[in-house]
């Protein structure tokens, strides 16, 4: 009996041990340290971190305008980003599940931006907004292209939205396509025979049946937009005048540029709580809308 127990223990250690060790070292311990440091005035350099209680949190909620602004930017961006990527992703998926000759090529095309990292994409689009759009604008005279795209607060915001939608709609499209392919054909045919219009079929049959995909796609889009960092770093650097500084970037700057690690970790904890609450509320809400065929 004892040797069986020993062999079970050995198996547990060999199989689960490595994953557990790396996960603990890289995620659990830093997370716990983060909780502790958020109550200190740690500056990242000296080994000492003085306990300051809730001072960091008070400071953030009462006096930190830059954090509040970065939060507003991220919230606005998330709402628009989530809506546009999901609508476009769904529309692309809807038409690319129709019998088009070019649909395989088009699926590849729409997905392609997604394989390039946000940092490189940001630089590519910086060129397009500054030089490319200007060239198109002067050739065609369309004023849309002649806007100072990265130069004003309003246009820079939309610039990031445009790039984000271009980058991520294709990924969501893939998920919506697989979900649309799973909608039972006989239900659609039955509805068609009963004389339902295309719009009716879409609203009353297709959309309710693809809600599980919507749950996932909304979750992904929300967490991507909230965590956005690379794209604004390379596209606008948070400018002009800090108007496109995301929460992630604000946290990064607080710690690594201003050396206020204690304050930075407090912001990071707040950020984590907000992301966790919003995503779980969203999943709970859309799950309640799911139906079975």
């Amino acid at each position: 009996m004892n040797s069986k127990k020993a062999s079970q223990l050995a198996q547990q250690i060999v199989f689960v041990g490595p994953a557990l060790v790396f996960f603990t070292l890289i995620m659990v311990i830093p997370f716990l340290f983060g909780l502790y440091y958020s109550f200190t005035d740690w500056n990242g350099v000296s080994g000492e971190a003085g306990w300051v209680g809730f001072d960091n949190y008070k400071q953030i909620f009462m006096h930190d305008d830059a954090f509040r602004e970065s939060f507003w930017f991220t919230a606005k961006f998330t709402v628009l980003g989530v809506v546009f990527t999901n609508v476009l992703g769904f529309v692309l998926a809807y038409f690319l599940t129709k019998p088009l000759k070019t649909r395989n090529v088009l699926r590849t095309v729409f997905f392609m931006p997604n394989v390039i990292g946000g940092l490189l994409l940001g630089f590519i689009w910086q060129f397009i907004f500054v030089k490319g759009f200007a060239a198109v604008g002067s050739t065609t005279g369309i004023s849309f292209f002649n806007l100072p795209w990265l130069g004003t607060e309003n246009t820079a915001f939309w610039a990031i939205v445009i790039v984000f939608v271009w980058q991520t709609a294709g990924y969501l499209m893939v998920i919506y396509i697989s979900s649309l392919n799973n909608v039972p054909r006989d239900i659609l045919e039955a509805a068609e025979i009963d004389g339902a219009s295309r719009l009716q079929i879409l609203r009353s049959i297709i959309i309710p049946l693809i809600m599980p995909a919507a749950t996932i796609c909304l979750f992904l889009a929300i967490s991507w937009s909230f965590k956005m960092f690379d794209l604004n770093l390379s596209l606008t650097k948070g400018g002009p005048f800090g108007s496109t500084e995301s929460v992630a970037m604000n946290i990064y700057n607080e710690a690594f540029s201003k050396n206020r690690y204690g304050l930075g970790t407090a912001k990071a904890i707040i950020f984590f709580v907000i992301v966790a609450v919003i995503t779980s509320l969203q999943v709970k809400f859309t799950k309640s809308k799911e139906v079975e065929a």
Partner: protein
Amino acid sequence: MDIAKKNRAGTIATELVMIVLGILFLVPFYFLFVNSVKSFGDLLTNAASLPKSIEWGNYSRAFDITNFPTAFLNSSIITIVSNVLLVLISAMAAHRMVRSNSRFNKGLFLMLVAAMVVPFQSIMIPLVKVASTLGLMNSIHGMIICYLGFGVPMSVFLLHGFVKSIPQEIEEAATVDGSNAYGVFFRVVFPLMKPMLVTVFILNTLWIWNDYLLPSLILQSVELQTIPIATFAFFGQYTKQWDLALPALVMGVTPIIVFFLFMQKYIIEGITQGAVKG
């Protein structure tokens, strides 16, 4: 007959609209490639036109300045080694956690699921401290260990769902035939997990290859730079030197686009499977 005709006309119209949209999606790539072979003057006069003459010299200059081969090699080593180890340790853990449903394993699984909503930014600050205490800073192996830690939750989660769908009778049969637990896993279960292993491999490849933030915190020396880090450093030095920057960007995006075009089928399947399980 009439309805069929109307349907066909509708399909053709849809197809045309979608093709136009597809071309719009490709326009950024047009700007990138066309301007990467223009002379600086040509590029400034009109960024939308085709090049007057093709300047391949842009590429060789950018190639030298970015130290492209080093960055490519670093990115490849980090991505491949992290991926192989991650797939292995996650598969082993997932298998054991499904088959031995102890209270410890249940708790661990819940923790991994919870960890998936933790944004990287909310642990990066103390991570730097932990990494320097453990001697992981400024080294390729340190980088790999960090990716193992961050990759475990999602990878185990996906594989956990998949192991559940493997009938336990197969494993019991192998045990009866005289295999021990390790033999059962490596000879029977691991090969059966292949479809989900491919999914995990692909999702992790896209993430690790493109990651900027983590390597920017861990890797400092020039000879350890990955492609995103090298690109960022390059832009710091050569702001607005588009005749050098665009070829550098083309070289930066080419490897992952080639990977995508070759692995397309698996990538699309992987994302679908990942999403269904997630």
